[in-house]
């Protein structure tokens, strides 16, 4: 599978009666920084542990760098990972922990260790024992151990947990450098969408063991734009009318929706203009640009669908998926 670093198909995982993952599929392309987003307990760590072979597979398949997980350990030698908390020997110094990891990977060049220490900014702590490092420094050590052998694929589970704001910024820069300078494909998880947004090129949103949505950064940007969302019967005709009237900038989302990205757009004036032009206006809603709201809306819709499934009303009440739509009854200004 050329161009795909990680291919997960129909993976399921149960712990007793609890379903941690249910038929999850996703693909990470080479060169991606794939942000896996989900609440605590959504299944992110379970998925990463399955990829790393730290948890036995139950259903589905995972192909990592062309190797099937469970059948071969070879692919694992080409990955680096920090799953849950970084694990280092507390009685060994930063350099000694890295030396240990270097030996495990069959590396003999001490420059690899120096390079990894420099890369993560731990040069001043190279002689400090791991147990004396702060949480942020331990995260850096974990990252240094993970990148020491120049892996093709890096898996980071909640790496920004416990980092202070400046640490988060530096960590973000580190990931970007890894991706750009070493062409490392990265799978990173977090429950903080805004943080992943800063670094990721693709996103997967996981909720209660289900993959809710996968989207690219441009798709997320498009879904996340602020403005006045107009629902009409003929979007192309409405676009021509708005264009002639010089209202905008705006974008046609689909056959029935336009997004006017102008804070000063007057819904009443636009409504009158469209109706006079022969367009049936179904509604206006104000769309906010908050990633968190987008995420919460998506989860709310997923919960609603889950409830409907549980009630035995599968899809008849399913709302048209406009996850970024922030309209409320109070904000709607129907014609």
């Amino acid at each position: 599978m050329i161009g795909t670093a990680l291919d997960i198909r129909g993976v399921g995982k149960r712990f007793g009666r609890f379903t941690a993952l249910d038929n999850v599929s996703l693909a990470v392309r080479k060169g991606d920084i794939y942000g896996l987003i989900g609440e605590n307990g959504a299944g992110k760590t379970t998925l990463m542990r399955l990829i790393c072979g730290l948890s036995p597979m139950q259903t589905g398949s995972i192909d990592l760098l062309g190797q099937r997980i469970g059948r071969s350990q070879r692919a694992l030698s080409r990955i680096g990972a920090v799953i849950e908390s970084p694990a280092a020997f507390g009685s060994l110094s930063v350099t000694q922990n890295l030396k240990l990891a270097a030996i495990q990977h069959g590396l003999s060049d001490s420059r690899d260790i120096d390079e990894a220490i420099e890369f993560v900014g731990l040069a001043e702590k190279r002689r400090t024992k791991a147990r004396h490092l702060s949480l942020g420094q331990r995260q850096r050590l974990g990252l240094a151990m993970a990148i020491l052998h120049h892996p093709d694929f890096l898996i980071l589970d909640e790496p920004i947990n416990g980092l202070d704001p400046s640490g988060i910024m530096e960590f973000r820069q580190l990931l970007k450098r890894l991706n750009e300078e070493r062409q490392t494909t990265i799978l990173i998880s977090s429950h903080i969408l805004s943080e992943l947004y800063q670094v990721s090129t693709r996103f997967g949103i996981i909720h209660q063991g289900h993959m809710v949505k996968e989207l690219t950064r441009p798709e997320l940007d498009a879904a996340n734009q602020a403005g006045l969302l107009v629902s009409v019967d003929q979007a192309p005709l409405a676009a021509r009318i708005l264009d002639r009237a010089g209202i905008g900038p705006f974008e046609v989302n689909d056959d029935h929706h336009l997004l006017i990205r102008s804070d000063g757009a007057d819904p009443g004036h636009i409504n009158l203009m469209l109706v006079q032009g022969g367009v049936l206006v179904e509604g206006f809603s104000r769309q906010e640009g908050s990633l968190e709201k987008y995420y919460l809306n998506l989860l709310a819709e997923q919960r609603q669908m889950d409830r409907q499934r549980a009630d035995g009303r599968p899809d008849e009440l399913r709302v048209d998926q406009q996850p970024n739509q922030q309209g409320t009854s109070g904000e709607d200004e129907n014609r």
Partner: protein
Amino acid sequence: MINQMRADFYRQAHTIGCYVLLAATIGFSVLLTLTKQVGGMMVSEGNTSQLMEQMAHSPWSVLTGVKALTMSTSVLLYFDIALFVIVIGYEFSQKTYKNTLISGISRLQFIGAKYAVMLIDLLGLTLVYYLTCLATSLATGRGLGESAGKLAGDIAIMTIAVAFFISVTFSLGIILLVATGSTIIPAVFVVVWPLAVAMLTVFAHWSWLKYVDFINVAMNVALSLIKVGDLWPYIGVSVGVLAVTIVGSALIIRRKEL
């Protein structure tokens, strides 16, 4: 697997506990040799009791010393629990095995490497134990007790027998560690096992228990109380136990949530 073993030896070289263990082993050997102490934590019976009695009342040579030290290997086993914790217990208590297993090593290689490192460490420590006795005895002006060549051969056989059969006991500890994730349970098990087997042998008279009384087997082999021709069943059982514990541990770890 070789890289993993190298990594383990590197870690041990930077672990103070290993040097403390080495010092304790040397100290214990010196103490036994100087004070002519015989015996350890065991249920004495038969030939072993006779031999202990003889040693206590005869002038000591180097050979007497190394034989007396062999009688005390049950205590050496307790010292070696520290080695078990350093080599493999710490990996599980600190969950550093995640790094190891993600490095591409198979579960079987991981467990095999841990056992091999323990065996090599045990061989080294046991050799130091005997060589310290040799040095201490010579320093106090004792005679060799037999020719130098034969003494060297005896020390080599004692070292291999004691280290191997102690390692078999620890292999049972490894499978318990992997199955339970606790370092306490295997440590207690390693302490209790020789005593429990010895006591059961005395009270229940189950003759087959002699094959799993690994410490006693080690002593009997080292002291030539078992004839070479009779040794194979003991070796067979021990190799079987090793195979079951190493492969079993690998299978458990493969099915375990790590």
